[in-house]
Structures are given as C-alpha cells and as structure tokens.
C-alpha cells in the first residue's frame, strides 16, 4: 500500500498546480519528473517545452479541457515538439486546478505496453478515481483555486 498526499505545487496566474507526494519519498512526483529530464542529453528540450507550455498556456488561460489529451480518466500533456515521446501525466480537476504527476518517455504505441509510462499513467488514473470518490463522499472539496478537506489517501499495490 502506498500512502500519498495531494500538495500545492505552483500557483500561476489562472491555475493552481498541485502534485502527488508519496509517503517516504524525498521528492514529489513532478519534481522527480523534472529532475530526471532537466539535464537529459536527449529529452532536455522536450522537458523545457512541457514546462514552458504549462507556464504559458495553462498558466495564462487556465486548465481548459481542450488543452489536454484524454488518457482514460487522467490526462497527458499533449506536447509535440521534435520528439513527441516525453509524457507528463496529470489530473484536471477544473479550469483552475490541475494535479501534475510523473511521466516518462513512451516507448510503445500503447501506454499499457510501456514500462516507463504505464506506472505513472495508472497512478494518475487511480488518483482521479480516488479523488472523485472522496468528492462524492463530501470529504474532499474544490473551492475556487483550492482543494480542501481530505488530501491524504493510499493506493493499493
């Protein structure tokens, strides 16, 4: 069982970014993603594109539905620079709230066949389901730019 909490990550002009932090991990999931690719010889520019796109598109206009690629219930940032293989998974809560997760380099056509991406894809889809349940039970609430109430959960192994 993996315990995690949803924590605030970065407030931009029109969106509040959250991330996922697993208990016992030094870094949250999004920092792990950035850390992996920030100096990567092949994917450094792809990471820069994702980061700048988040800042410019989402940050200035909000997490609008049309900006994301549907990945079951979670979303993937649909960046397509020179090499469109780097994926960052997220859960869109509203125009004002986006939860960023982790991601990786997609190596197969179907995400379920990709060992780099599938664990993150699955985590974010599970987190979407868990949060939705918690909101239905009225334990977790969304208020404008904030997620309030219950923010600690666990994922089954």
């Amino acid at each position, binding site marked *: 069982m993996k315990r995690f909490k949803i924590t605030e990550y970065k407030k931009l002009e029109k969106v509040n970014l959250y991330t996922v932090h697993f208990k016992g991990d030094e870094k949250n999931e999004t*920092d792990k993603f*950035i850390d992996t690719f920030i100096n990567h010889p092949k994917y450094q520019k792809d990471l820069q594109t994702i980061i700048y*796109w988040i800042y410019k598109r989402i940050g200035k206009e909000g997490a609008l539905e049309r900006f994301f690629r549907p990945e079951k219930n979670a979303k993937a940032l649909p960046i397509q620079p020179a090499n469109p293989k780097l994926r960052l998974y997220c859960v869109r809560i509203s125009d004002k709230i986006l939860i960023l997760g982790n991601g990786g380099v997609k190596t197969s056509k179907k995400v379920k066949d990709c060992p780099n991406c599938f664990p993150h894809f699955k985590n974010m889809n599970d987190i979407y389901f868990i949060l939705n349940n918690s909101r239905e039970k009225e334990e977790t609430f969304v208020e404008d730019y904030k997620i309030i109430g219950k923010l600690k959960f666990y994922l089954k192994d």
Partner: protein
Amino acid sequence: MSQLFDQALATVSDDVKRFVDNSIYVADQIYSILKEKGISQRKFAEMLDKKESEISKWLSGSHNFTLKSISKMEVILNASIITTPLQAKHKFQEVKFVNVKTYVKKPEITASINNPDKYMNESSLREGKVKGGKHQIFTNGLKSA
C-alpha cells in the same frame, strides 16, 4: 511550493519559447476561424479526414504544424492562418483611410444666469439648491434667456 519548476522554467531556451508561442498563435488563429465560421471540431476533423482527437491536439497549442498542413487548412477554411510581417506591411499599406465613428453621450449642462461661470447639474436645480436669480437650463450650448 516547487523551486524545481522555477529552476526548469528559467532554463527554457529562446527557441523553445518561440516554438511554443508560435504553436499557440497558430492554434488560437485556427480556433478563432472555426468559431467565427461556426465549424465544430468534429466537422473540421471530417473536412480534413482526421480523427477528432487529432484536431483537439492541434488546437491545444502544442502541435508542430507543417506548412503543408497549414496550407491545407487555409484552403479548406478559405481563410488566412498565418501572415508574415512583410505580407502585413503590403496589406495594410493599401489602407489609406479608416472611418472611425465615436459615440459620446452628450452631457446636460445647466448654468445660472446670475453666475454663468458656475455650471451645475439639473438635479441640483430641481432640488432647489440654487435660490434667487433667474435660472435657465441650457443644452446644446449656451442660449440667451
């Protein structure tokens, strides 16, 4: 709050910024034409023989458009998607005069005959704030009493 995000943002190169900015400009221009012409994303996908999810990806502002695909869209939409600064210069040089109509609400001005320099509004007259002397409401410029 993340410092790593800020750190990564600070390292973004100018060419990456320009790529994302241009991609957003083109996507927003297409989105605007579709809205103006009342064409849905689904209909647009049919017109281009593409999947709707593909069009959705294009309009997110993160697609690496080719000149070929832009040209195809321009023909199908019968509209210009990109205009170079040189084209813009030629196009807008042809426009010599532009008629501009500005509508300004005409103010109602009142003045006291005894003190024509003192302007006041009509309500203050009705409320009897100005006593004595002859009052005349003036509109459309000064008139003699």
